């Protein structure tokens, strides 16, 4: 069954959806993430039920979000980390929700205060609404296309300042995929990290690692980080953050050289902050790509 494509959502409709998403995360979702963080480590060890316990909270949060959204917007598609089936794609559909119920699950298990819920609405392949909530630090980032980006209702405005690779602070993650040798991407990631840090390479100010892709995107949006380079994540990890980033003047390109235009499910990304002009951003991206070692693919 295929339905005819509806009209693009207006700015006002998008803002309304943004408010709906904020209300959804403010309730039980924030409560569960904040109060269950660090509570499952013990049982997590006991393989029979512990890994499952974490997944259970993940699923519970995803179900709360899905129920709320499908009740109010029954016509939209849904893709979530927990219910995702490999190979399935919603990218062809007109409008769909793209949800990571708990991004930063390792942080969640350890009680490290950098786990969040990430919800986006994707329209014709582009994230047009994004909400990311980290209840441990009391931060809700939100944006919708054409309406600007906000942290806890306060507009995100990066003061214009120089953007150059050597003076930059970059979010970088080791990730969970650590296979060395030709079968994996781990060697290329570590070689890229070394080239960025080395006094004979880019010699950047530093790297930071939060353990959450969605929060890294938000911190680039705010200009706390100058950039975030990542390979191996999925569309639900970055969709909401991508909307917030673009509304805050940042850009999202591919993680591999020359990938200026990428689909949302590209798996490899480079996010660069605003507070700079497009030419500076382009130079930054090109300078960054020159330190990417090896071709990473998924």
């Amino acid at each position, binding site marked *: 069954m295929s339905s005819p494509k509806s009209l693009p959502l207006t700015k006002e409709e998008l803002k309304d959806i943004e408010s709906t998403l904020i209300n959804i995360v403010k309730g039980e979702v924030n409560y569960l993430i904040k109060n269950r963080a*660090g*509570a499952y*480590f*013990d049982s*997590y*060890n006991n393989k029979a039920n512990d890994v499952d316990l974490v997944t259970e909270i993940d699923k519970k949060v995803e179900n709360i979000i899905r129920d709320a959204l499908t009740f109010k917007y029954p016509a939209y598609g849904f893709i979530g980390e927990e219910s995702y089936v490999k190979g399935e794609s919603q990218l062809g559909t007109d409008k769909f929700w793209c949800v990571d119920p708990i991004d930063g699950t*390792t*942080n969640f*298990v*350890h*009680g*490290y*205060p*950098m786990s969040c819920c990430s919800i986006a609405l994707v329209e014709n392949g582009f994230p047009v609404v994004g909400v990311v909530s980290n209840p441990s*630090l009391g931060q809700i980032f939100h944006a919708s296309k054409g309406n600007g980006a906000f942290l806890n209702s306060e507009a995100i405005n990066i*003061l214009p*300042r*120089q953007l150059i690779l*050597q003076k930059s*602070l970059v979010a*970088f993650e*080791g990730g*969970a995929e*650590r*296979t*060395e040798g030709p079968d994996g991407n*781990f060697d290329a990631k*570590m070689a890229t*990290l*070394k080239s960025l*840090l*080395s*006094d*004979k390479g880019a*010699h*950047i*100010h*530093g*790297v*930071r*690692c*939060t*353990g959450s892709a969605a929060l890294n995107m938000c*911190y680039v949006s*705010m*200009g*706390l*980080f*100058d950039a975030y380079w990542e390979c191996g994540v999925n569309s639900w990890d970055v969709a909401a953050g991508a909307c917030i980033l673009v509304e805050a003047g940042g850009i999202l390109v591919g993680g591999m050289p020359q990938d200026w235009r990428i689909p949302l499910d590209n798996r490899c990304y480079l996010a660069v902050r605003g507070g700079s002009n497009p030419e500076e951003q382009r130079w930054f991206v090109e300078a960054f790509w020159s330190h990417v070692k090896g071709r990473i693919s998924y």
Partner: protein
Amino acid sequence: MDIDFLSVEQFLCDLAVHKVGSLIKSKAGTQQNYDLKTGSRAVDIVTKIDRQVEDIIKSEISSKYPDCGFIGEESYVKGDPRPDNKAFFCVDPIDGTTNFVHDFPFSCTSLALCVDMIPVVGVIYNPHLDLLISASKGSGVRVNGEKYDYGKKIESMGPLLLNKSIVALQPGSAREGDNFKTKMATYENLLSCDGGFVHGFRNLGSSAMSLAYIALGYLDSYWDGGCYIWDVAAGVCIVNETGGRLVGANPDEWNIDIDNRAYLVVRGTEPSAEDEQETYIKEFWKSVKGHLKYD
């Protein structure tokens, strides 16, 4: 000279929150002009706010405790001897200066009192998160002034095992020579599925915040080289009070001085599982590739 550690802790807490915190918070992200401490190191940053904050702290401390020595990051000159006072204060006015310049909310002030080279009072204040964590030797830890029950936290955390741990790792500002190679090779080995295969690493860009987060049970350990006594003194006092342990970054360095420059700090465990800590340290050292060495 008799010093009441708890009253020093209270004094340092007031100083951190009321005299220093608001200055750090209001100036974060506004300092686009900064100096490079050592010519060749284009990434070792210091701002005029660092110096201003240290001046405030130094003058408050020396009027209240005139008999104690003082060592601070900004007034220290390379080659200075250890303070010859039995008791001295040890201060990093802004730990995480790169974070401070970039407005990443993990810069903090780190204040400690050392007696006979042992940190006996430690105070760390992060004004961005309004997180104050303090401890005195033998008197436990307080978070924002409230007694902190670390035992209860440990109970909820499960066993301390290398391949289930989150480790704080920071490349730091020295990016040349053998120490940089040792660090990168060790990171790779810790992460690799053929090596330590830790759950993950986290990099906060502040030694003091990393140690505070170990005490709070957010992180399991911290491995670093190149830091100074003022980066770690307050944090080590706090971690010690929660049953954590400080050893050297290189294998078999079981007993080190607080100014060792290269460290491994591991969180506390349940009293019934004391050997977990020692096993963890030995396992961790197996992943260290090379030898960290500082002048």
